[in-house]
């Protein structure tokens, strides 16, 4: 430690205070200034100055605000001013007064710095986790973006996962919004009361107040002009204060963003996120959604400190004395917000552990994994819970047949007074509808025609539910049920319509094939129930009951194909019973349909068709028929759906070999087929499937805790002992080498644990950091293999496209008959 001789007067004047209130002070400069104040070597914070001037006892000397810094700098003669009447005559008393001021400053600064440190710690963990795009680390918004680029829209209905949906939207009038944001920035800047010293108490409180939006606050009560920017006189007064100018500016922005009309319309639970607006000088950004507008911190280093000044408050509680808020009073308990509001309204935060019930979905055990007692399996892959296959087609893969991935272009028409009119489905029967040149069928939703206890029925193409022939292009879909589940019945039956649309009309074609066996029935029904169970999950029904989508689909398939156990295979899981799942789901819909917003009759469900069902109906026309339009969102999946359906349609419908499908399973009936020449492009490019196995790293908490115990002992040079506290003390260390007297021996034995105390303390403090690092490593381990699998897909696709580009299209047709 260095030695120095304190030098006399005037040297302290060399020390210059660094201004921290400048609007452009950087993060480091502000932290440095707070640290300097904590050291209490030069100056105190403005709130502390004001507070001390109010609470310092008048019986000693009258302390003014400007005296506080002088006391820190030990300028006694300026503080005491012996020539004044109310000052002590004896200047030696001055040092005592000055030391008391310094002590008060140090204690209050220490407390404020501790609270700031908590903010630094949590801010450091959370700085990279944010819901809104445009932030420094935008993982939460980048992941949905990548999903959106890859996903085919069929996955929205047919995938057994529900993601929280968000879409990015731009402002309709950026120039007008710029003016509104400038107004907001001005209102916020006005809250900064810094002068010679920083005083941002109100600005900081305002940002935290509107951190989670302004709508709930504004809805609770109008902003009272008499309480504008004022607190209630308690330590936490600014946590509940309101700032009318700021609220007006936020409301002005909200008026525009809430009025936006979305095309396509927002899905259930989907959020629309507008670009964030940064106020760099203030370290603040503004986030905007279609349902709220709020503020946030660029770098979250500021927090609301216990208030010390109540001179301007609109109330004077007991702890407010002469304008100072005295300590020692515990504030009242803050109320928890309602579920799904405040912090839990943000898109990413709502998936966090604070905002979501920690009830995991009841699902069967994961196949092909060995879980030991010491392991916790975080996640894994599994096959659907079916006894047999999950999907069947008549020929070919029928890519993207189920689910909706296209926007409306052409639809069926009905004869009108002045020509064909667009067909609008009603709950009644519509027989004379023309599907158009681009489609092989149309769907006619009819209410109440099941005639049986069955809830829904999709008749074979060209026939009604009784087997009587009708329009050969018509797929009559009967919706019965309890009325309140009509939405999901419609989605289910439309999937069946999709399965039958491109088949020839009649019972014999496809219908019997599908339902001839239980396996066929299960494979057909499972696909349809994936869509309806997926819709139920999106609407919150399945999460409330704790069932996953594939469990729901497997259980419901049982009831369409012969009863419980026909299709589903849940192992021996006692928590999964098809009948119970079916009954609970039906009852939940019956009890909560109004809250969910479900139509309560079939008629209402047909007249206000769910957008998901509409999209599936839009996807029925053929994609590649000449003169037919196809419109879809530009994603990788949708492009692949288009290419795949077009290639399939071409392979199944071409006329190169007259009257014959080339890719059916039937044998050759024409003698010259076996003598056809070899396709010169056969095997031109061949790809092996990428290896998509992603091993999930196991998480072994018990082993990690044992390793920590091991480390505690190794720090003391001992082997692992249980419990590890035994490593702190080994009686043999002293008894094998006695000291000169018993007292010294006793003292040494007593002091032995103290030797390792520092290492133990350091290790125990380090443990959370190491734990965090281990968690990050587990994530990195998974991510690196998952990204590699992704890379392989992209390489394969790249090779495929290159190969396509290298194909030489022959200018002559392949020889039909080759002399052998």
């Amino acid at each position, binding site marked *: 430690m*260095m030695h*120095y001789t*304190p*030098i006399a007067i005037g*040297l302290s004047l*060399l020390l210059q205070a660094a201004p921290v209130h400048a609007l452009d002070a*950087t*993060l*480091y400069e502000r*932290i440095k200034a707070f*640290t*300097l104040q904590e*050291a209490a*070597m030069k100056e105190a914070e403005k709130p502390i100055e004001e507070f001390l001037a109010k609470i310092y006892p008048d019986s000693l000397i009258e302390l003014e605000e400007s005296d506080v810094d002088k006391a820190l700098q030990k300028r006694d003669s300026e503080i005491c001013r012996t020539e004044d009447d109310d000052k002590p005559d004896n200047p030696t008393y001055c040092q005592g007064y000055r030391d008391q001021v310094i002590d008060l400053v140090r204690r209050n600064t220490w407390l404020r710095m*501790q609270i700031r*440190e908590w903010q*630094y*710690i949590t*801010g*450091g*963990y959370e*700085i*990279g*986790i944010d819901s809104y795009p445009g932030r*420094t*680390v935008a*993982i939460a918004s*980048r992941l949905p973006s*990548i999903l959106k680029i*890859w996903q085919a829209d069929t996955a929205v209905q047919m995938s057994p996962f529900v993601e929280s949906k968000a879409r990015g939207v731009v402002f309709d009038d950026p120039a007008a919004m710029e003016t509104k944001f400038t107004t907001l920035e001005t209102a916020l800047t006005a809250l900064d009361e810094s002068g010679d010293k920083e005083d941002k108490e109100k600005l900081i409180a305002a940002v935290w107040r509107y951190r989670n939006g302004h709508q709930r606050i504004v809805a609770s009560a109008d902003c009272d002009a008499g309480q504008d920017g004022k607190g209630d006189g308690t330590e936490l007064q600014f946590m509940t204060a309101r700032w009318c100018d700021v609220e007006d500016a936020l409301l002005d922005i909200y008026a525009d963003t809430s009025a936006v009309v979305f095309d396509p319309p927002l899905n259930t639970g989907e959020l629309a996120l507008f670009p964030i607006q940064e106020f760099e000088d203030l370290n603040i950004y503004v986030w905007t959604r279609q349902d709220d507008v709020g503020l946030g911190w660029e*770098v979250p280093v500021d927090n609301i400190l216990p208030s010390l000044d109540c001179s301007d408050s609109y109330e004077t509680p007991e702890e407010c004395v002469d304008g100072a808020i005295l300590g020692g009073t515990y504030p009242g308990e803050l109320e928890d917000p309602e579920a799904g509001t405040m912090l839990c309204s943000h898109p990413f935060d709502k998936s966090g552990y604070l905002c979501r019930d920690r009830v995991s979905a009841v699902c069967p055990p994961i196949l092909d994994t060995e879980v030991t007692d010491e392991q916790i399996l975080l996640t894994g892959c599994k096959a659907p819970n079916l006894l047999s296959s999950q999907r069947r087609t008549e020929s070919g893969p029928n890519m993207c047949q189920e689910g909706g991935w296209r926007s409306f272009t052409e639809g069926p028409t009905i004869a009108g007074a002045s020509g064909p009119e667009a067909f609008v489905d009603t709950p009644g029967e519509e027989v004379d509808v023309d599907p158009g040149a681009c489609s092989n069928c149309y769907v006619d939703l009819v209410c109440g025609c099941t005639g049986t206890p069955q809830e829904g029925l999709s008749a074979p193409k060209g026939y009604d539910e009784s087997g009587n022939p009708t329009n050969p292009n018509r797929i009559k879909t009967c919706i019965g049920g309890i009325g309140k589940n009509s939405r999901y019945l419609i989605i289910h039956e439309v999937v069946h319509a999709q399965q039958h649309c491109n088949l020839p009309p009649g019972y014999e074609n496809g219908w019997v094939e599908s339902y001839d066996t239980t396996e066929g029935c299960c494979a057909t029904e499972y696909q349809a129930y994936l869509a309806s169970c997926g819709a139920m999950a999106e609407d919150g029904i399945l999460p409330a009951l704790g069932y996953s989508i594939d469990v729901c689909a497997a259980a419901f398939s049982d009831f369409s194909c012969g009863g419980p156990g026909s299709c589903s295979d849940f192992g021996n899981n006692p928590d999964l019973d098809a009948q119970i799942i079916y009954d609970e789901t039906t009852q939940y819909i019956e009890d909560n349909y109004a809250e969910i917003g479900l139509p309560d009759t079939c008629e209402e469900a047909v007249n206000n068709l769910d957008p998901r069902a509409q999209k599936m109906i839009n996807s029925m026309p053929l994609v*590649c028929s*000449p003169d037919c339009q196809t419109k879809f969102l*530009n994603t*990788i999946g949708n*492009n*692949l759906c288009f*290419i795949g359906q*077009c290639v399939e349609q*071409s392979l199944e*419908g*071409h*006329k*190169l070999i007259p009257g014959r499908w080339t890719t059916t399973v039937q044998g050759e009936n024409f003698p010259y087929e076996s003598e056809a020449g070899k396709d010169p492009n056969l095997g031109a490019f061949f790809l092996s499937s990428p290896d998509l196995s992603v091993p999930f790293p196991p998480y072994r908490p018990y082993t990690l805790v044992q390793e920590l115990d091991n480390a505690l002992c190794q720090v003391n040079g001992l082997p692992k002992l249980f419990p590890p506290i035994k490593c702190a003390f080994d009686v043999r260390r002293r008894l094998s080498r006695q000291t000169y007297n018993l007292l010294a021996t006793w003292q040494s034995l007593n002091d032995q644990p103290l030797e390792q105390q520092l290492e133990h303390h*350091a290790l125990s*403090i*380090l443990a959370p*950091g190491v734990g*965090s*690092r281990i968690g*990050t490593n587990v994530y*990195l381990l998974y*991510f690196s293999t998952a990204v590699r699998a992704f890379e392989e897909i*992209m390489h394969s*696709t*790249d090779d495929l*496209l290159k190969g*396509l580009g290298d194909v030489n299209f022959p200018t*002559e*047709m392949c020889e039909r008959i080759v002399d052998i």
Partner: protein
Amino acid sequence: MRNPTTSLITLCALLISAIPTVKAAPEVGQRYPILAPCSRYEDRYTDVADFLNMQFEDWDDIYHEQISAAIEEYIKPAEEIKCTQDNLLPVSAGSAIGRIARSLPPWAEPDEFAKLKRTDIGSVLLEYLRTYECAMTDHNFFLPIDIITQKFEEAAGGGPPLQFIRGFSLMSVAAEMGARRIKMMEEFAISRPSLERSLMVVSGIGRLGPIDAELQCLQRGSLDLRNALALGADAAMCLPRVWDARDVLRDIEDG
């Protein structure tokens, strides 16, 4: 009393960076100067990262400005992500972090500098802090000599060294020593806590930055793939022309 959590969490921020990290062990046969004692008599620390070549009055300004610039730069998203390289987030020589790193012995060599990643900011700034503290400690040990040497050099004004200075007073040397020691005491009190707190705040960026960079690269690659497949879809639209082909490709309307 400073919270020990602060320094240890900062240490963790230093440790939590993507694998592989800058090596903290020397090559065989080579001295690696991190955590080596730094004094003016130590090899590679002769001018203690150039501090001994500067006026003492400028030390704190220069140090704090450099640190502030590095942290401000780090808070902003990376300007460049090299998706096709192993090191996604390299440090450029012209950046604030790069300038600090190049002035320090561990990264003065181009080979070592090339291994630096953006997330190594903790290592670089803490080494810079250590060097700054080392410079002050070293200066304090030789304070009277350094001050006297400085006065004689100023009086010589670049010319031949002087034998004596008219009006030279030991009291002025003592006064200068006192002032410098007070300044150094203040700097010791605030430099380390300030840097550790700042690193604590920005450590989250370092923890998640590499993942964010990977995701950006994945996003860009996905967009490229989407565009390529969109071209494929455009090409597939022409497939109907093939359906009715007999011997040569022709338009259907031509009959």
